[in-house]
């Protein structure tokens, strides 16, 4: 089947790729652009491991087609750190031991950043509901919630 040629922006860089009609944005990121930081946990939008932002909006990249990315600006985990400087969320996850196997971590970081952009001073409950679209099987969520609340505090300058 003939492939489509698509132009988009990923983490601030212009990209161009070929993809089949049924390939998702997740497939494209991983298999065509070789950005494997975004993970597939379920392929049906239920686990959040494939979380990215598209035009600033939090999305499951497995629920979007590659062709739909044309002309759009996409942010993945690979773009979260600024050079050598980790984002406060990334630092807090490390300090609080908020990751174990790490496969859900990119999705959580993207989702948490998006949450804090919308709500810079969330309560514990707001963090838990705000991240309910991301599954973690290792941590029981305890240290993840602590890390996000601590990062929010730091980012507010509190």
């Amino acid at each position: 089947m003939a492939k489509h040629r698509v132009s988009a922006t990923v983490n601030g860089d212009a990209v161009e790729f070929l993809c089949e009609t049924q390939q998702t944005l997740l497939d494209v990121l991983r298999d065509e652009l070789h950005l494997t930081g975004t993970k597939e946990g379920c392929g049906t939008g239920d686990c959040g491991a494939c979380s990215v932002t598209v035009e600033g909006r939090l999305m499951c990249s497995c629920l979007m087609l590659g062709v739909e990315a044309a002309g759009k600006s996409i942010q993945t985990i690979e773009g979260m750190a600024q050079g050598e400087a980790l984002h406060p969320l990334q630092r807090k996850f490390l300090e609080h031991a908020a990751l174990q196997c790490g496969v859900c971590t990119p999705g959580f970081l993207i989702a948490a950043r998006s949450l804090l952009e919308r709500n810079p001073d969330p309560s514990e409950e707001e963090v838990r509901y705000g991240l309910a679209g991301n599954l973690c099987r290792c941590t029981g969520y305890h240290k993840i919630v602590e890390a996000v609340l601590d990062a929010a505090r730091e980012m507010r300058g509190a």
Partner: protein
Amino acid sequence: MSTMVKYEEKPLKVVGTRPIRPDGVDKVTGRARFAADYSLPGQLIGKVLRSPHAHARLKSIDTSAALALPGVKAVVTRDDFADMASEFAASGELTINFRDVTRNMMAREKVFYDGHPVAAVAATSESIARAALKLIKVEYEVLPHVIDVVEAMKADAPILHEQQFTDGVTPKPDKPSNIAKRMVFARGDLEAGFKQADLIIEHEFNTKPVHQGYIEPQACLASYSEDGQVELWTGTQGHFVFRAQCAKVLQMDTGKLRVTPTELGGGFGGKNNIYGEPLAIALSRKSQRPVKMVMTREEVFRATGPTSGANVKVKIGCTKDGRIVAAEAELNFQAGAFAGSSVGMACPCTFTRYDIDNVRVVGHDVTVNRPKVAAYRAPGAPIIVFGVESVIDELAKALAIDPIEFRLKNAAKEGTQTYYGPKLGPIGYIETLTKAKAHPHYRAPLGPNQGRGVATGFWFNIGMETSSRLNVNEDGTVTLIMGTVDVAGGSRASMAMMVAEEFGIAYDRVRPVIGDTNALGFNFITAGSRGTFAGGMAAVLSAREAIGKLRQRVAQIREVALEDVLWKDGVAQPAPGGAKQFAPMTLAEIARMAGKTGGSISGQSEINAQGAGPGFCTHIVDVEVDKQTGAVKILRYTIVQDVGKAIHPAYVEGQMQGAAVQGIGWSLNEEYFYGADGVLQNPGFLDYRVPVASDVPFIDTVIVEVPNPNHPYGVRGCGEVSIIPPIAAISNAINNAVGIRLRNQPMSPPAVLKALGEAASGKTKS
């Protein structure tokens, strides 16, 4: 000779602190590479064709149309794999049989579950591979199936294996059965024991299969060279065991297969078994190209091992002052398509928390038309402990004795004779009970429809074969090569901490890496809470060997006797009271000179670690039951667990919290739904409901340290035991909240509502 390294109490500088884990930065930046993140130039994509039937004879497979499709480079079926005779091998927790392994990875005579592989293809793209699967023509003769364990045990049940006769029954039966094995553990005189009881409570409990639920589906990449060498990258808890099993089923030399364990996205016991690996290797062999196989989430649910569903009966008798005098249990566990469930381990841990003179535990391993079960964190224990800790709760209540007090009256301790064999060594059960009772959670006030429940857990923990080596680099940094896969718990950090402690150097001067199968001697699977225990023991022995060599080298350089050299705080210095003084040498100084004074310095150890210490825990949970929806909310959760020694407390806490939340999911929502046709109806995370962040509160953890006398730092495994109590604790809490007693898992809203309705209409007594 087996290895046991004794515990020494000493002041610690690194062990017990909370440094950042060495794999952390790569994981928060997306740089860490899991199995599906690996690719090779020219690779093909492999896909598996799976049975749509729960039970059928496999009459014929025609792959010609698939092979003819442009882009398809290889197809494999049962004809491409040798038949294996019955041969058992230890695969950690669940002993496997190679005859069954080869049939589970690719069906031969029959298919035994919806999802059972019947063929696999490798093609130049995923879409072509999927199209090729549709072109494979398979002829099935559908047979009656059986899914429920009690149904499968009946004499007239459809039989899965005509050559399976119940093992452990005398005289040997001559009719095939779905009961693969029967086992009996006993001690004392049960009948006499029950005669002494003032109160006897007996109940039956039923649980459903639940999946380990790791977020990363299985994936592997295989590359076969024309000379028979194979490279395999795969997500596994045990690359040496995978190498052994793949080599066996593919009939190749072990040494020709190099397995690299990739970063693992969760295992919990479910990644102890080979699935796609032999298929990928065979496809690579046929196509002369690398083959990558990644499971979809649906395939993970349909075809990889869940834990057993079960039917258990528990009967306990005690005196009126709460002393247990007799205990009996029957455990009927589903093994899935092939024999070998965790019933063999659930039996010995059924009553082991208590000192009981008269015990009898009977276990049945039963094959049913579901995927072959795999281990899941303390395999079998959560199921039977649901039953036992619920009955204990009822006994305590009937006698108006505090639930923790009741357990204290009967608690096992050092020297207690178990009913499965040995006496217990030093353990921390009573400590966890006492600390739980004193915890503020235990006295906190409760509101309407709220209740508190308590339950306890015990797990044996294991040691097993372990190899490691370390090298002192020219600048005095140390590279530790481990063979125990870091299955996420942070054991890499703990190993590096123990090595840093041994050398007396800073934690960040030690770099731990996982070696592939070419780098080290055999290492057993990381399971059974053995990673930090056995891996740590090997790392410590490697460090001590290297330190011996360093002292030797300094003795030569400084021309003193070996006994005059003391190693302390990273420096070789004169031993107090030694014959000669000399200028001390730091690790870096010795290392810099090593090449010119005899060669680089390293240490290694190959052991079979003995002396694993059992772990105990006590859980307290508060719930609130919504009587309108049947939803159970977890208000507060506290874990008190004996871990021997917390090398890295944050990762120990992480194990306790993660295990408890898996237990909460198991209790409240997780289950497999099957249709009348035996096909799985909820193979995805939408309808297989695992806990999300909003389902649980913060989990309080209290670490108890009763050192294991058989580990240099006192480590007991800690990863498994906290998944055991939640189901019973929550059931007990629900009973205290609204007066209903649930004996089936999951305690999901429909089940709670039904029980509330029955109680209200007076149908049941709680």
